[in-house]
């Protein structure tokens, strides 16, 4: 049994100027203990798809089609109350900005224990004991003193550690981390990622990591989904995505990451992807990336590409993978099937 299955999920926002189709049919699977990375640029639907899973969409947002199966329960059918029993308990979230994600008026201890007391019905004393253990586990020194302090007395990295402690305290089966390191210094980013890797192994939790930072993905994820324009364009094991990508968008993303090993910076200039992401009020009928793609064919503008199976676990939604493609793909002809 899979831990999480997302089947053909569509999510839209209904605004006064029309419907924004933010997620346009994505399917994903996550097995127990897996770490899945979802990458893509701002506005590609990666956060919205995960907020749909947890039922935390803004008031204007709605799942219009598709199912989310958690273990064997279809949670798209859940009521608010049922979802609340799941959130923070079996599925928890970590957000981008630890400076604003904690309530400034409540002590760290209270924010670590309030959901534990609600979900697990433990006493205050027991909750406090577990909170202290958790603070030590996430590497916050002097936990007895820190537990009574307020967020403004914590540094950015310490706050994110506290957020992680809060998300783990109910021992969830799944943690969805939405850009957990984006707002932090580079050195702190590395510490937080190491902590997450370490805790995942120790507590046997699955993780979905949303990020636009490919370095973060490479570091921690076993599988990667690349999203663009509300769709998944490529999905596969991290190694395949990084070294044998079969989608021009993924390749473009890769080229826009600086490589410190290049000898002279001038030799290999960073190459941004030209053009603008698609307008999700009127999503294009074809591949959302086609207008910006150097290899686009006529068919790319007309119909969305189906998934081509590259290997057992690697799929790419790009017509270049078709053996009848008229254009030679950047990865060469031999891979076309």
């Amino acid at each position, binding site marked *: 049994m899979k831990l999480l299955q997302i089947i053909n999920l569509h999510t839209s926002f209904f605004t006064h100027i029309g419907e924004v189709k933010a997620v346009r049919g994505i399917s994903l699977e996550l097995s127990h203990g897996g770490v899945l990375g979802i990458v893509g640029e701002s506005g590609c639907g990666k956060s919205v798809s995960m907020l749909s899973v947890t039922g*935390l969409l803004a008031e204007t947002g709605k799942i219009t089609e598709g199912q989310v199966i958690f273990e064997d329960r279809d949670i798209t059918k859940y009521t*608010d109350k049922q979802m609340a029993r799941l959130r923070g308990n079996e599925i928890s979230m970590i*957000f981008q*900005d630890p400076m604003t994600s904690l309530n400034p*008026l*409540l*002590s760290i201890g209270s924010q670590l224990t309030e959901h534990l007391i609600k979900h697990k019905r433990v006493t205050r004393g027991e909750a406090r004991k577990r909170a202290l253990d958790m603070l030590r586990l996430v590497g916050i020194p002097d936990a007895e003193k820190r537990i009574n302090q307020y967020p*403004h007395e914590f540094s950015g990295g310490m706050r994110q550690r506290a957020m992680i402690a809060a998300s783990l305290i109910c021992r969830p089966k799944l943690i969805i981390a939405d850009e957990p390191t984006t707002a932090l210094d580079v050195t702190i980013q590395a510490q937080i990622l190491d902590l997450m890797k370490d805790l995942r192994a120790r507590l046997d939790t699955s993780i979905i990591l949303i990020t636009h930072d490919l370095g973060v993905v490479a570091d921690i994820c076993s599988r990667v989904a690349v999203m663009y324009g509300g769709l998944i364009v490529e999905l596969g094991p991290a190694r395949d995505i990084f070294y044998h990508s079969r989608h021009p968008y993924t390749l473009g993303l890769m080229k826009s990451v600086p490589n410190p090993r290049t000898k002279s910076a001038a030799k290999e200039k960073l190459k941004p992807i030209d053009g603008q992401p698609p307008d999700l009020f009127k999503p294009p009928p074809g591949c959302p990336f086609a207008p910006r793609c150097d290899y686009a064919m006529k068919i790319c503008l007309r119909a969305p590409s189906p998934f081509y199976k590259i290997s057992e676990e690697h799929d790419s939604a790009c017509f270049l993978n078709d053996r009848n493609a008229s254009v030679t793909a950047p990865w060469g002809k031999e891979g076309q099937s």
Partner: protein
Amino acid sequence: MGRYILDRFLASLLTIFVVITLTFFLMRLMPGGPFTSERITEKAREAMNAKYGLDKPVVEQYVIYLRNILHGDFGTSMIFKGKEVTGDIIFQFFPNSAKLGIVSVALSLAAGLGLGLLAGARQGRLADKAATLIATLGITIPSFVIGSVLLYTVGVRLRWLPTTGFTSWRHYIMPAAALSGIGLSFITRLTRTKYVEVKNSDFMRTARAKGLDKSTIIFKHGLRNSILPVITYMGPLIANVLTGSFVIERLFAVPGLGSDFVQSVSRRDYSVVMGVVIFYCIFIIACNFLVDILYVVVDPRIKLQNNA
């Protein structure tokens, strides 16, 4: 903290001194005196002036007054002869104004916070528009109009509540409601504006992501973060409402300090005016000080200290 309180105390003494001085000389600048309108002979009037020391030069009167109040002697009323300013007037009538005021502030606070949260949560919907309308009406309709309408409908026509007097809890309802219009409006607007900002903040999303109950999210996380502007406003509101309203006390025949104060000014009852002004001054300073303390209780980021 100790240093802060000491500094505030010394600053308050200075404020009170300035208020005493200004009020004393301004009262003396107004034409007429306490005995101008009494039908007595010129000789008797001079005798009265001499009795209360009003025949001496103004500066000398001022020095004498300061010396007296430093000894705790606020004198007696010049109109209601023999009545002591503190014991027979202020402490006699202020409790009535204060009791009515407390009920009114509690009403403003409960209704204002509730309406404000409701409007903020349902931003742009019908409930929001209704709450905004109530807030606008509360601030634009003068309290005596609200009072008169209540008196006529609830009191005279429906006979649900007594129209005048101040003996049972039922007497409090109408004057308190009439008095709470402005406070309710301000608190509603302040709460709504802040809650609209707070409800979209990251920590509210965190609270929802933790699967907390709706009421916990709204009250523990939302309300507490929305209440600071309301606390700021509570200082002036409490001072304003508890010191009594001349109009409302007159309308409902409440034996409060508000109506006495206004009368004492128009009848040039110097000693009563001075006593009440000093009392109000201390009361307002105390209210503002309490509000500052309350900040620290609600928001751990605020520390009391003097930057001057």
